[in-house]
C-alpha cells in the first residue's frame, strides 16, 4: 500500500519549507528538513554543496531503526568495524593499500582529536549564519573556519601540526616543486558553486598529502581534507568537523545506523568507528539534490534512471516520467516538468 501526503498538507509543508529557507538556491537545503518518512519539509530544494554547511537531510539526532553496530575497539586509525547489518552497502574495508598507501598526513593517532577541545572549542552553525538559527540541524564547522573562506579550515593539517615546523613541509616550499593540474581548487570542483563563501580564486593553493592546502607567507594557513586522500578508509576523521545526523530515512536508506557511526561531508557519506573516529568505509555519494512537489525538475535529469527493482512500477509513460536521486524517485509531468510526486524508496 502506498502512503500519500496530499493536497493542502503538501502545499502547506512545502510553503513552510520555503519560508524556512530564505536563502533558497545554493546552499539552502538544510534548514527545514522534517526527517522521518516524508519529504514534506525539505528545505530549499536546490543543491546545497557547502562543505557540510549548506545541506542537511535532516536534523534529528538518533531515531531511525535498524541501526548497525560497530565493534567497540579503541585507539588507532585502523579499520575495526564489524557487522553492518543486512544491507551490506559498505562493507568496511580499507582501501587496497597495494595500490594506494594511506596519505602520510592522515596517519594520526587519537591525540589529534584533542585539538578541537583547545583550539576549536566554539562551533558556529553555518545554517544559523544564514538565518535559520537551528543549531541542532545540519553540520557545524569549527570556529577555525574563517568568515569568507568557508570550506577551508584555518591552521595546519593534522599530520603536519605535530611537527612544529611552522607548517611548511619542504615539498611545498616555494620553488621546491612544479605546480601541477591539481594544485587548483577548480580542478577539485571547489569553487563558488559548491563552497559559496570561499574565496577560491585567490590564494596559493596546492595539493598536499591528501589535503588541498592554501599557503601564506609563512606556510600552510588553511586546509581541506579530500575524499580518497585524508578522507580514506583507515584514516581518522578530522576532528574539526562535527556532524549531526541524517534524517532517519537516509540513515535507513543508506544503512549507516546511528549518527556517531557516520559522517556526511561534501556530498559523501562515510562510515566511522564511533570509538576511534576512524573512517571505515565510504558508503555513498549523493547528489545533494532535494526537490519538492510542485517544483520544476531541473536540468541534469534528462535520462530515465530509476533503480532496476522499481522499473516495472515506475516507468516513463505519456502521463509521467520518473527520475531518481538520493534514495528518492520523483514523478514528473512530462509536459511541464513539474514534480508531481515524491516517492521514498526504503527497502
Amino acid at each position: 500500500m502506498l502512503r500519500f501526503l496530499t493536497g493542502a498538507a503538501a502545499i502547506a509543508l512545502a510553503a513552510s519549507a520555503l519560508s524556512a529557507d530564505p536563502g533558497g538556491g545554493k546552499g539552502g537545503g538544510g534548514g527545514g528538513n522534517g526527517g522521518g518518512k516524508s519529504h514534506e519539509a525539505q528545505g530549499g530544494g536546490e543543491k546545497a554543496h557547502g562543505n557540510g554547511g549548506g545541506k542537511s537531510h535532516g536534523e534529528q539526532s538518533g531515531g531511525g531503526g535498524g541501526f548497525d553496530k560497530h565493534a567497540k575497539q579503541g585507539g588507532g586509525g585502523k579499520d575495526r568495524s564489524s557487522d553492518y547489518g543486512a544491507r551490506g552497502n559498505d562493507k568496511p574495508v580499507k582501501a587496497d593499500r597495494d595500490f594506494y598507501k594511506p596519505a602520510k598526513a592522515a596517519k594520526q593517532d587519537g591525540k589529534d582529536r584533542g585539538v578541537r577541545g583547545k583550539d576549536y572549542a566554539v562551533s558556529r552553525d553555518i545554517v544559523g549564519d544564514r538565518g535559520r538559527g537551528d543549531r541542532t540541524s545540519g553540520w557545524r564547522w569549527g570556529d577555525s573556519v574563517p568568515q569568507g573562506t568557508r570550506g577551508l579550515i584555518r591552521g595546519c593539517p593534522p599530520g603536519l601540526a605535530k611537527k612544529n615546523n611552522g607548517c611548511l613541509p619542504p615539498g611545498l616550499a616555494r620553488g621546491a616543486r612544479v605546480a601541477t593540474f591539481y594544485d587548483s581548487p577548480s580542478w577539485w570542483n571547489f569553487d563558488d558553486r559548491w563552497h559559496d563563501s570561499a574565496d577560491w580564486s585567490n590564494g596559493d593553493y596546492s595539493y598536499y598529502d591528501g589535503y588541498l592546502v592554501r599557503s601564506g607567507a609563512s606556510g600552510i594557513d588553511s586546509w581541506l581534507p579530500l575524499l580518497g586522500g585524508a578522507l580514506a578508509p583507515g584514516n581518522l576523521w578530522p576532528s574539526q568537523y562535527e556532524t549531526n545526523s541524517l534524517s532517519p530515512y537516509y540513515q535507513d536508506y543508506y544503512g549507516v545506523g546511528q549518527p556517531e557511526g557516520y559522517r556526511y561531508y561534501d556530498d559523501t557519506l562515510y562510515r566511522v568507528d564511533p570509538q576511534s573516529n576512524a573512517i571505515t568505509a565510504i558508503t555513498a555519494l549523493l547528489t545533494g539534490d532535494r526537490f519538492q512537489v510542485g517544483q520544476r525538475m531541473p536540468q541534469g535529469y534528462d535520462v530515465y534512471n530509476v533503480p532496476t527493482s522499481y522499473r516495472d512500477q515506475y516507468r516513463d509513460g505519456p502521463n509521467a516520467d520518473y527520475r531518481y536521486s538520493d534514495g528518492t524517485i520523483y514523478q514528473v509531468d512530462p509536459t511541464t516538468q513539474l514534480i508531481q510526486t515524491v516517492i521514498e524508496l526504503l527497502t
Partner: protein
Amino acid sequence: MIRRPPAIIVGALALLPLAACNKAADSATPAATAAQASAATLASAIGGAPGLTTVAAALKGTGLATVFDGTAPYTLLAPDDDAFGKLGGSAAMLKAPENGAAMAAVLKAHVLPGYVTVADINAALKAAQGKPVRMKTMAGDEVTFTRIGEVLTATAADGSSAKVSGSALTASNGVAIPIDTVLKKVPKTSTP
C-alpha cells in the same frame, strides 16, 4: 532485500487526483523490457571485467568500491584501460598512492545517480529529437550525451569527451558503461 512500501507525497499543485497518480505509477506499461541485471553488485561486475582493470583497481585503491557494493544505485561511465593509457604520465601520477584523492576526484566525475542503461540514454535522445540530453554527475557537474549515427558520446562540463567503447555491464545496483576517454581534464605530465 526486503522492500517496504514507498512513501509518496502528492502535490495538489500537480492537480491530479490521488487515484490518478496511483494509477499512473502502477499501470504504466513498460515500453521495453528492462535488461536483465546480473545479481552481482556493480563493484563485483567491474572487478571482473576485462578492459576495466585500471578503474577497478582505482575503485579499490580509493575506497570507492564500497559505494558500488550496496543498495543505492549508480551508473559509472567507466574509462577503459586505453582511456587511462591516453593520459600518459598523468595516469601513473593518478595511480600513485599519494594521489588517491586525485584519482577519487576523477572517478567521482564519472558517476551518475541511479541506474542508467545505454538504452535509457538512447530513449532520452530519441525523445529529445536529436538534441543532447544531460545527466548530473556526483562531482556536481553535468555530462551531456549525444549520438551521431551509431556513436554515443559523453561530454563533460570541462569539455572532455568520450565515446562508449563497449558493452555495458548491468548489475543489481547499477550499470557500468565503458568509455574510451577519461571525462575530466588531466593534463599530461611527464613527472608523476
